[in-house]
């Protein structure tokens, strides 16, 4: 109907003459014409059908790309994945140069980097370098409740928290007085005005509900005993109760006067001991602990005074007297008695958040690095730089004339010089001659042979704990797993075909016995088969293959067997048999070709199955199954980094998911193409 004008429509009252009627093909004889189309085979037909299913073709394309990458990436990627490189540990993925706000540009967000409270910038000994920070530092102050190294260095203020411990005696909690004890001091009993004040952070204290905390200031004497240290506690104040008293400060204004009230001290002139803040464990408390927060101590004894709890506790944490003297700590060394738990509470610490260029940190230019004269000489010898020593005595003197040659531009780790150090010992004649300059880290690593090229590395999938390029690691793993998959699938098909063919073709008793055998073999959980084989003969590629092939063929055998049941009674088979065809000929020539489509499909679908199984095993039995550098092992190794460095597991999972999905789609497409009647079943 496309060309309506071409169709002749009879007009009204039109007369048709006899000439208008002619015989078509009057004098011709009609012959069968040869087919204009080309003959097609079963496979060509199947491929045609396959090409019509768009999703399967796309899947096949993705699959081809991934398999291609598994072959090409390990060869083309020069990065070393055998010797760990600490500098490159956990680098985020980097695809693009320049600042893209954190999207695949090799930067990561650092949240809690301690800052120097004085300057608001990174402290000199920070693990981060200020030249690698992208953008600005957003400072935020926070409270820290643990005496970490960062808190020790940069924290300030807060309270010392003493918590009465629960000393368990024969199943029952025996509350004991416990406390924080000053350094040892001598109290002159004839002197007035010896005082001590413990300031309590009443605002932040909270107690376990329905319990009472008692606390007081005390003088403590240590006595030797068989068990260890024993203490005698002389209260200097009444025992306060938190529920009623709630003091901000416990003050003893005249220690000597208080002590003289005790029996037996009237005769003494001086006493050696410790001043302490003591908490009594409430008698009604059995399982939870209460804490006293002390924010500062004032006293007439100068060396027990402190007003910054963080600083004070940092001092106390250094127990070695020599080290204490060296560090110039002012206050003495506080201790505790009867094991209260002492910890820091709400130490203020300034943290900074910023985006950090991990690549700049690992591979970029680092200023202020000292180069020895030998190194400088070696650079000069290689023709990378020229440098004229000025040799003015002293550190940090002005540097001499420095130039990079064209070759040095590419290779030399020293990029520019900032200063020169020169020192000559007049007595021994020893000479120290150094240059302080900017070091190009990647050029140094490359010249040491630790990275492949003289250029800034760019890891598409980032790096793992060992500093290995995760892209290469992943795809070399994929290659191993794919190899395992193809081999296992091939072997399983051969075994399964033979088994299924024999079982299906002959039927009867043979079939029954063979079926029961596969049933039992198939009933053993795969993980057991795997473990047993690996435990008995060790873990290697061959062992894995063996374990996969031991039970893997059962599926193929089942499919083949049912195909044989379908076709063996067909008339053409009977015809062939009557003509004298042998069993082998019937099996391989007449029946098996019918099952080819199904078998090819199951072979394709077996490959992702093997990859999946291998990965599962690597996840489940990391100690037992070590198929080196397989895909599953690579993935399970980065499982522990999931929280901190999720990009590793994400990129690995995406590749895994792509492989699985495209193999499945591809396999389904193949099945539909080979077996159009099955189309749509379990889809």
């Amino acid at each position, binding site marked *: 109907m496309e060309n309506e004008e071409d169709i002749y429509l009879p007009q009204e009252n039109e007369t048709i003459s006899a000439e208008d009627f002619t015989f078509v093909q009057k004098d011709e004889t009609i012959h069968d014409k040869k087919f204009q189309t080309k003959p097609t085979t079963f496979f060509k037909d199947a491929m045609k059908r396959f090409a019509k299913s768009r999703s399967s073709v796309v899947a096949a394309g993705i699959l081809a790309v991934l398999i291609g990458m598994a072959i090409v990436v390990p060869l083309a990627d020069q990065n070393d994945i055998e010797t760990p490189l600490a500098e490159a540990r956990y680098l985020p993925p980097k695809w693009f140069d320049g600042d893209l706000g954190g999207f695949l540009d090799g930067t990561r967000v650092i949240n809690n980097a301690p800052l120097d409270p004085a300057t608001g910038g990174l402290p000199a000994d920070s693990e981060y370098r200020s030249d690698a920070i992208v953008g600005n530092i957003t400072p935020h102050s926070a409270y820290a409740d643990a005496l970490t190294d960062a808190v020790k260095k940069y924290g300030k203020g807060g309270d010392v928290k003493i918590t009465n411990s629960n000393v368990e005696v024969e199943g029952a909690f025996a509350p004991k007085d416990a406390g924080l004890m000053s350094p040892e001091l001598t109290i002159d009993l004839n002197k007035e005005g010896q005082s001590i004040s413990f300031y309590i952070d009443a605002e932040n204290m909270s107690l376990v509900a329905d319990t009472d905390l008692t606390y007081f200031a005390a003088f403590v004497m240590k006595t030797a005993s068989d068990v260890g240290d024993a203490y005698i506690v002389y209260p200097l104040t009444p025992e306060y109760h938190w529920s009623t008293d709630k003091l901000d400060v416990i003050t003893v204004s005249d220690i000597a006067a208080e002590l003289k009230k005790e029996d037996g001290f009237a005769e003494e002139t001086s006493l050696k001991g410790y001043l302490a803040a003591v908490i009594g464990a409430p008698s009604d408390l059995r399982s939870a602990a209460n804490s006293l927060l002390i924010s500062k101590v004032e006293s007439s004894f100068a060396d027990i005074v402190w007003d910054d709890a963080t600083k004070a506790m940092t001092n106390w944490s250094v127990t070695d007297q020599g080290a204490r003297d060296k560090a110039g700590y002012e206050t003495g060394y506080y201790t505790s008695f009867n094991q209260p738990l002492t910890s820091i509470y709400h130490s203020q610490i300034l943290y900074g958040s910023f985006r950090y260029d991990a690549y700049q940190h690992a591979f970029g230019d680092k200023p202020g690095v000292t180069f020895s004269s030998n190194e400088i000489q070696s650079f000069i010898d290689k023709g990378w730089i020229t440098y004229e020593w000025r040799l003015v005595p002293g550190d940090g003197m002005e540097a001499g004339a420095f130039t990079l040659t064209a070759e040095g531009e590419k290779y030399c780790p020293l990029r520019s010089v900032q200063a020169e150090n020169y020192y000559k010992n007049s007595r021994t004649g020893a000479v120290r001659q150094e240059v302080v300059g900017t070091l190009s880290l990647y050029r140094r690593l490359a010249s040491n042979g630790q990275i492949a090229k003289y250029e800034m590395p760019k890891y598409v999938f980032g790096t793992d704990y060992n500093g290995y390029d995760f892209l290469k690691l992943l795809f070399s793993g994929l290659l191993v797993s794919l190899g395992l998959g193809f081999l296992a699938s091939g072997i399983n098909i051969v075994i399964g075909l033979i088994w299924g063919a024999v079982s299906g073709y002959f039927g009867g008793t043979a079939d029954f016995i063979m079926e029961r055998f596969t*049933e039992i073999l198939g009933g053993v*959980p795969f993980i057991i088969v795997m473990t047993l084989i690996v435990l008995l003969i060790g873990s290697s590629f061959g062992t894995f293959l063996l374990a996969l092939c031991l039970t893997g063929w059962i599926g193929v055998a089942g499919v083949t067997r049912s195909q044989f049941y379908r076709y063996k009674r067909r008339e053409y088979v009977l015809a062939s048999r009557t003509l004298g065809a042998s069993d082998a000929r019937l099996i391989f020539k007449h029946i098996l070709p019918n099952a080819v489509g199904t078998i090819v499909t199951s072979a394709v679908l077996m490959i992702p199955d093997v990859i999946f199984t291998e990965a599962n095993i690597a996840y489940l039995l*990391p100690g037992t199954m070590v198929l080196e550098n397989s895909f599953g092992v690579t993935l399970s190794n980065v499982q522990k980094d*999931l929280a901190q460095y999720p990009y590793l597991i994400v990129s690995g999972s995406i590749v895994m*998911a792509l492989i699985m999905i495209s193999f*499945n789609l591809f396999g389904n497409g193949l099945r539909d193409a080979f077996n159009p009647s099955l189309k749509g079943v379990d889809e």
Partner: protein
Amino acid sequence: MKDTVKYVIQRVLFVFLTTFVILSLTYILLQCIKVTPGGTDMQRWSYWEDQVRLGFYRVLDPSDPDYLERVAKGLFDETVRVNDRNYYYVAEPIMKRYVMWLGNIFRGDWGVSSKLSPGRDAFAILMAGLPYSMRLNIISIFISIPLGLGLGIFAALKKNTWIDSTISVIVMVFISVPSFVLISFLLIAFGGVGGWPLQWQSDAAAAADPALAFKMYVIPVMALCFGSICAFARYTRAELSEVMSSEFLLLARTKGLSRSQSVIRHALRNSMVPIVPMIISEFIGILSGSMVLEQIYGIPGIGGIFVKALNDRDVPVIMVDMAIYTTIGLFATLIIDLSYGVVDPRIRMGARK
């Protein structure tokens, strides 16, 4: 009817036979692995004493005339020193151990754990883990069956529309993605949100905080659900759309039934024939735990115990766990086969042709 009963009895007996053969094979093979019990010397001593009690080993008696000679020549397999005395143990031959083992398990004595939790009854360890796995599985079944069936039916009724293709794509993705990938993504997602436990919490912690007790189920239940929801949806869609295009449904419509009447009365019922067995097998699967999930999330269920026992080479625990897994697996197959006949009377069980 008589045929059916005979067939069922035959199948059940065969399940027991298969289980027996599999367990026997596994036991004998596992005996080739050297067991190294963990714990203190005392615990190891009590493990070997238990092995002696079970009849797998015998202890050398110092009053034997050849005792010293045997010890000197090293003619013993294991030794442990407790209470200032050396105990020497000699392994019985494998076949004898096997026979003793058979006798023991018929009395319900599976031996004690060697390393996982030294000295504890292997069967009790598994029984302690079972409730965790069961609870998770039951919750996930009651979520995944209605959702899966619902999605499948919805997709089949809207066949060849964008809804159908969206559901199909999602189903395809979730079926293809391995469970550990799924769990990892769940953990990353929930870790990013914050406030969700990324590890299984102890019973005490859960009892103290009801909100936590609820939250700690979310990730594992989701991980378990996605897979089975998708499996159900895929299967239901395929079955229902096949039935929808059949002649009898066309007849029903021509007869004057409305679309919903025909779907509910005729199509759904018929499409359920292969799905009901699937649901039944899902319920049998309650007893088994997902190894990957329990391992990664740290759930003390039987899947996690199995993996730990395998890593520790704790043979008694492996044997109990295997017995559970194998029996469940075989019974699931059996019940699926039998249920076909119950759901669809046209299928005669054990029919010759």
